[in-house]
């Protein structure tokens, strides 16, 4: 038993190291440079870093792109489309040089790859691009300044994130207001101008993320607000695959999943077995032992979110992602 718990501690420590963060510094851009896919000749064009892949569509005829670009531009003062690659912070998260910029036509996606495929996205940092920020702040030829002529228009610029899992687009979403002028008190109106962490773990298991933008400034030709936002330091939880690579696996199933108040663990392995429920950051939250093939575990005091369930046996171990939802 003592050996088993020692193993659990080692496992937990390993989980902490198994988060992968894509900060896009790997593209090694100098200040002012960007990648918009114009030189990409791949059949599956885009940008890969860590365990994420950012698709890009570059149109040679138009010289235009949609999806994602990688940028190290720093211009926070020049309005207009010509400055479409800059973040309003003048760089990446935590004063890093490089970050990702998305221009959304319909939707942009991020695919999880490698060890994180089908896993959980822990979160990412989000901010406005300079083009959209200054457009909302000051208005331009097409788009209005937020608040309108009187300053009282209840304008907003909303980023909506959904997930694709097993080929299906989820109904649940995470919403993030890149600008919000809907407050009665105009002094509370804001346009995001800092890197802001967005926790995505509640989306649970993900094959890919879907990003869309909407605005209150809409005309006959669609949204007037420039459809750009910036993203950096996206962290995926790829512990499951890494652990499985290092450890012999055993059969394990959890149901129901997503769960509300309890789950049932089922494994074909005989003998003493230890279970543990971990947060996505690797913290052991609950643990216990069982001897039968099935074990019911109460989740009554765990809040909604993403977790991992680990079962350890003499023959090996197994880990499964668990979603608690509906509380």
């Amino acid at each position, binding site marked *: 038993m003592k050996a088993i718990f020692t193993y659990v501690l080692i496992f937990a420590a390993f989980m902490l190291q198994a988060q992968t963060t894509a900060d896009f510094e790997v593209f090694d851009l100098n200040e002012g440079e960007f990648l918009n896919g114009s030189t990409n000749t791949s059949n599956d064009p885009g940008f890969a870093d860590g365990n994420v892949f950012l698709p890009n569509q570059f149109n040679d005829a138009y010289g235009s792109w*949609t999806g994602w670009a990688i940028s190290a531009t720093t211009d926070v003062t020049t*309005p207009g489309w010509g400055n479409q690659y800059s973040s309003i912070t003048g760089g990446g998260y935590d004063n890093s040089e490089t970050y990702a910029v998305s221009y959304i036509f319909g939707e942009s996606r991020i695919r999880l790859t490698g060890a994180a495929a089908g896993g959980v996205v822990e979160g990412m940092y989000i901010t406005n691009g300079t083009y959209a920020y200054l457009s909302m702040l000051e208005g331009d*030829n097409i788009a209005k300044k937020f608040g309108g002529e009187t300053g009282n228009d209840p304008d907003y610029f909303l980023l909506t994130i959904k997930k694709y899992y097993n080929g299906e687009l989820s109904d649940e979403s995470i919403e993030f207001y890149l600008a919000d002028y809907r407050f009665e008190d105009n002094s509370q109106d804001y346009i995001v101008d800092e890197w802001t962490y967005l926790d995505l773990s509640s989306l649970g298991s993900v094959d890919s993320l879907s990003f869309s933008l909407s605005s209150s400034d809409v005309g006959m030709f669609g949204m007037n607000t420039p459809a750009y936002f910036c993203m950096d330091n996206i962290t995926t939880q790829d512990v499951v695959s890494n652990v499985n690579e290092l450890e012999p696996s055993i059969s394990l199933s959890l149901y129901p999943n997503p769960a509300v108040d309890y789950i049932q663990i089922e494994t074909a392995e005989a003998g003493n077995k230890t279970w543990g429920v971990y947060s996505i950051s690797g913290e052991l939250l609950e643990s216990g032992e069982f001897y039968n093939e099935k074990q019911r575990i109460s989740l009554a005091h765990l809040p909604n979110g993403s977790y991992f369930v680990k079962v350890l046996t003499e023959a090996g171990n197994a880990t499964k992602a668990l979603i608690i939802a509906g509380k």
Partner: protein
Amino acid sequence: MSRRFLRHLLCLFSFGLGYSLSAQVDTILALPEVKVVAVSLRNDAIGTQQKKWSVNELKKYQSNKLPFLLERESGVFVKSYGLGSSATTSIRGGSASQTAVFWNGLPLQSPMLGQLDFSLMPLGIIEEASLQYGGASDSWGSGAVGGLIHLGNRPIQRKGLSAGWNGEIGAFGQHTHLLNFKYKGKQLAGSSRIFYHTADNDFEYRAAAGQDAKKLEHARVIQQGALQELYWITPENGQFSWRIWLQETDRELPPTTVQNRSLATQYDAFLRTMLSWEQTRGQIYWQAKAAVFHEVLDYKDELILLETNSRFTTLMGEIEADWYINESQRWHFAITDNLVEAETNNYDTPIRQNRFALQSHFRQEWRNWRVQLGLRLALIDDRYVPVIPGLGVEYLLGEKWTLNARVNRTYRWPTLNDLYWSPGGNTELKPEQGWSQEAGVSTIQSIENLKFKYQLTFFNRNIENWILWSPSDAGAFWSAQNLTEVWSRGMEQRLDIEWKKEDWQINFKAGHDLVHSTNEVAISNPKLSEGEQLAYVPIHRFFGSTTFSWKKWELDYLHRFTGKVSAINVDEMPAYHVGDLRLQYGMTLASWQSVFYLRVNNIWDTEYRIIERRPMPGRYYQLGINLTFTSIK
């Protein structure tokens, strides 16, 4: 048939037009001994509604631009972006590119944009202006879909020397000066005009009732130009005319009402020169023209670091003949060729386009009928334009009533930007085309001192392959597509009452337009539903004016109502009433004539907008003087 007889016939013919409400005089051959008025069949459309402004009417507007006249005295909806800013038109529910504009018979629309910025057109340099409603592609080619506007210069009528100065000052830093010299000898005549206009256009406006007033910034305009004309009447009674028109306009482009600032500027400049020859030989009136237009449009926005420079040069040649076969038959034939070369940062290479056209008109008159058939064949580069026919009919019902009808095919060829702009130009575009029909009745009545004119017109037009720019599949740029079909139909009424007695004269004019112009194909981007009224096409528009004249005094009140319209970003922009007042006093002293005038625009201080997010000025004043010297012969 002798030449004398022909002249007699021409004079008779021109006088015979009196029963038409608005006969259009194209050219006056000012021969030394006898004036022969030649009206080209092409210019004298049958079966359609026309409006012609007199020289005296135009003089009232000579310090202003063409939109100022059109929005006050016609059914044209002028889409003005504000005082001094760009202005385009919609006639009978057509697009801005479906209004054809001509200067002495030569097209003024930019071949790159397909439209004319009417705010650049000063009225002080023309003597003729007329408006023809409805399609006329059989006569005037591409773009003559909603209607066409003719602007022209009239050969000098009076021998001797004359000179004039119009000076005007107004609110918002407006200064306008127009100086002209005219001379006519036995066979030579010449006219020189120079003009200068500047305005800050920094008027105040309010975003909404109860809000503090804001001042429009970055709206300054400076415009200057010159027009030189020379005429030579040949010993064989022909006439050579040479005109050169130079103009440049520097404009600051103001921010919208939902934009904090703007640093955008636009520079428009052009040189337009034309040489024409007119001659009557036997029973045929000949006219030949050659012209070169070179135009520049530079847009610059230092805020967003954007600069676009456009240039085009057009070479035009035209030969036309009007054959007066007999008293009831006429035949017209014309060959036209326009070669344009255009370049801009957004064309991959300079673009060259050639437009060649043949056209013919035949008129038959018998008893109370007048019928005119037109046909136009055109070749644009190596693409044939469909055959464009037109048929107009007029029937005199008694002495005071006229019935008219017209049907014709119309088209608008895609502009160079539609075809070649990079990105987004589409060389596969088809021309916008369709058919238009109209029918009407008019009457002229007189009772003692009272003259009464009334005209009622119904029209219908269907256009397919309507070109719109919309976001492409690639997302980041827009492209030109044949996206939809538009059905326009409506009714127009015109009323003109004149009362005269001794020193008094009162004129009352009014017009009402009812226009439904609907999108007939539901499309997602731009978002247009089937049956939806086009943006910036008011269903109702009313304009009216009353002029009181007593001795040397004259007082005008002009009123216009524009119904609600849909816009790009809002479903509805409210209707508005605007009224203007003008008072003038004239004096004559020997060879000197002077007219002093005061104009109060928007006298009711209406807060209104024609284009969303573009404010219009409240009440403002203009004070001016016209001084004319005429040598006594």
